[in-house]
């Protein structure tokens, strides 16, 4: 009996069991936390890259001032009907051109139909909307002379955001490039509530004259100012309405007719059934373009020029 091993007191055994249980619980929690951190990283990396806001309130619910005008303005040119508008899609989108002007065909145009090389000898002069042409990689940056806040006046007096960072104006760049075609897509930044359209139109005409002189072999084209959505935050700041935009477009179209320049009515291609800029094509500010919208624009231009 003398070689019998001493027994541990019960309370010590119980204490050790409790501690082991606590240790296991803590370790379990630590593992859970580690897994949750890892999993959250995996989930976030699988999220889509593009976060786009949808849903523009119906125009019918809004103040009718601009809406009435916009609908009236586009009544003769019903909006584009689209079948698909997801960004990054390679699936062709089909819309029907319904502009009644003689310069626009009635044939259906396949969006995504445009070919980058078709515009490889051309130059687009524009504002922030046009910067999206190369930011979204729809065109090479050398084919675009644009800048945020650009106006017709600035196009021959101030630096554009050029691929080479040379600080040249759009006019100077055009002069050196001597493009095959020049597309002017300006006017949005000069429009505002109560503004004098004649000043903007005058500088627009001056730009055309200067480009014609600097690039005698280039073919000039003018593209309409595009519409805004019913709840455009960008328009709220400037006070611009679709009524003002349409009035300006009408004047530019008349100027083009006078000067023998082809005018593209992109405005009516981007409006929805209410006459506002389709929310499917508009950036969250209700004025700028989503990536897909450039496909619509370039396909429209190419189809008209082909």
């Amino acid at each position, binding site marked *: 009996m003398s070689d019998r091993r001493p027994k541990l007191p019960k309370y010590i055994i119980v204490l050790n069991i409790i501690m082991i249980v606590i240790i296991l619980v*803590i*370790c379990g929690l630590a593992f859970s*936390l580690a897994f949750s*951190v890892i999993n959250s990283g995996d989930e976030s*990396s699988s999220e889509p890259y593009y976060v786009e806001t949808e849903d523009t309130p119906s125009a019918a619910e809004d103040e009718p001032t601009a809406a009435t005008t916009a609908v009236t303005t586009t009544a003769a040119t019903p909006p584009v009907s689209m079948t698909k508008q997801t960004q990054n899609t390679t699936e062709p989108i089909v819309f029907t051109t319904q502009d009644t002007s003689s310069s626009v065909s009635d044939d259906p145009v396949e969006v995504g139909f445009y070919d980058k090389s078709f515009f490889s000898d051309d130059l687009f002069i524009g504002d922030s909307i046009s910067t999206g042409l190369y930011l979204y990689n729809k065109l090479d940056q050398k084919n675009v002379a644009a800048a945020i806040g650009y106006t017709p006046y600035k196009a021959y007096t101030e630096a554009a955001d050029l691929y080479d960072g040379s600080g040249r104006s759009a006019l100077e760049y055009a002069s050196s490039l001597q493009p095959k075609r020049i597309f002017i897509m300006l006017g949005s930044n000069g429009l505002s509530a109560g503004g004098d359209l004649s000043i903007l139109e005058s500088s627009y005409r001056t730009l055309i004259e200067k480009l014609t002189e600097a690039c005698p072999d280039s073919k000039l084209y003018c593209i309409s100012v595009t519409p805004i959505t019913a709840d455009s935050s960008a328009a709220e700041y400037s006070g611009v309405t679709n009524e003002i935009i349409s009035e300006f477009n009408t004047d530019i179209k008349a100027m083009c007719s006078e000067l023998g320049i082809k005018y593209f009515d992109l405005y009516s291609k981007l409006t929805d059934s209410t006459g506002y800029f389709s929310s499917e094509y508009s950036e969250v500010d209700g004025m700028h*373009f989503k990536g897909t919208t450039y496909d619509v624009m370039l396909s429209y231009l190419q189809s008209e020029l082909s």
Partner: protein
Amino acid sequence: MKKITIIMAGIISCAMLAGCGNTASSGSESSASESAASKTPAEKTAELLAAVEFPSMVELTSDDLSARYSIEPDEISGFSAYICGSGAMPDEFGVFEAVDEDNAAEIKTALEERIEKQRDTYADYTPGEMYKFDDCFVKQNGTTVIYAICADNSAAEDILG
């Protein structure tokens, strides 16, 4: 012998409890920081895109960096950066891995100049978006440079850093 055994058992139990507890609390922090450090620039920017609301963003290419930021390809070993594609808003951000700390400092300077240029551009263009510049940042940590102009710069710094 009995007393020694009891004392040793108690000490070992306490040490294990304290050690494991310490591991559990600091372990989550270290694993999180290690996780952030081990992420590639593309993984970090993807996480930010998912976490914060942005307008339509496009990923910048090496050519864009050279033309827009004066950051040359030979200065960096890797990067991922995004900008608002439509030009409507000043949102942009990125993570740049420089080849050395001197180049990282140059990238930081280039990004600071970029932010100032954007601040001037958007001040008149979209005043409602200027709040995004309030706490925008450029940070250098060794050879890594991060920056962001967005609606939640605090979250951006946490994710990109």
